[in-house]
């Protein structure tokens, strides 16, 4: 019984399931002490037959949490909030450095390596998911 429980816990920490939406490989970028903002990255999959929108993300780690994208324009990289992120039917969207990300702004405390940050995601099909997002040091080789 204990083993089953352990395995279940291990699995749920790796993948979060809730209906049509699943989230894999979530992480928050470790940044130096005193940083005001950081990004959360993950792969969001939609197993349903229709497009689902990620409407919002919240966490107690930061005062402001937004869904962002990077746009390259006039030779500059511009980071902008987007109203929602569409996850097309039967596919997935990867939130990754230099692209879509969940932006944690005005952090309430410094980031600690290995710390798990709870991020709540709300979708337009009324699904809500809470992910335990570990703080990781990002190595480009693995990107």
């Amino acid at each position: 019984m204990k083993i089953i429980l352990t395995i279940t816990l291990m699995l749920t920490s790796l993948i979060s399931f809730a209906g049509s939406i699943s989230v894999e490989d979530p992480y928050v970028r470790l940044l130096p002490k005193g940083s005001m903002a950081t990004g959360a990255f993950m792969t969001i999959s939609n197993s349903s037959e229709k497009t689902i929108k990620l409407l919002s993300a919240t966490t107690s780690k930061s005062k402001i949490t937004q869904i962002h994208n990077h746009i390259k324009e006039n030779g500059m990289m511009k980071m902008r909030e987007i109203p929602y992120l569409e996850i097309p039917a039967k596919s997935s969207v990867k939130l990754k450095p230099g692209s879509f990300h969940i932006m944690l702004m005005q952090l309430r405390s410094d980031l600690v390596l290995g710390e798990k940050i709870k991020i709540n995601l709300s979708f337009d099909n009324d699904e809500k998911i809470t992910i335990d997002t570990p703080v990781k040091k990002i190595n480009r080789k693995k990107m």
Partner: protein
Amino acid sequence: MKLLSYLLFTLIILASVFFLTKEKDFQIASTQGEFRLSKQENKLVVLYFGYRFCPDICPTTLNTLSQVYKNLSAEEKSKLKVLFISVDSKRDTLDNLKEYIEFFDQDFIAATGARDLIDSIADDFGFKYSFFNQNGDDENYSVDHSTFTLLIDSKGRIKDTILHEDAFEIIKRKITNNLKGIE
């Protein structure tokens, strides 16, 4: 007419050669004292502009540079200077930049200064930036900025450009190849 276009073409080529090989110098207060480019003789300077609160692009670049740097030999390291210039002197000071840059590598240097100085250096190296304030409050703004990293010599001549989208192996090669040219 043919001669004219030929002349014009030559002029453009000469102008670009002049621009690319034009000697440039600057001096800026850094986390390791005054940094003067012309004093970096026999060094390859890795020049990158950004800001401390940059949550994604800057740390990705600095992380990559630190990974490349860690794998260099002691001799190669002695010929390389990584300089991060913060364009956000309103929020970034040499004190908080020191903690920031040393998170990536103890040897890396961060610098910042008055807006005029930063603008003149940025202009010289074709770097663009612009403040973006979504909510209109004074403290929470982001900075739109160019994402390339320049490899320059002590005369400010551009030896190579690292693009943000370059793969790790390409970045590593650009740095190590250019280090070979440094006596």
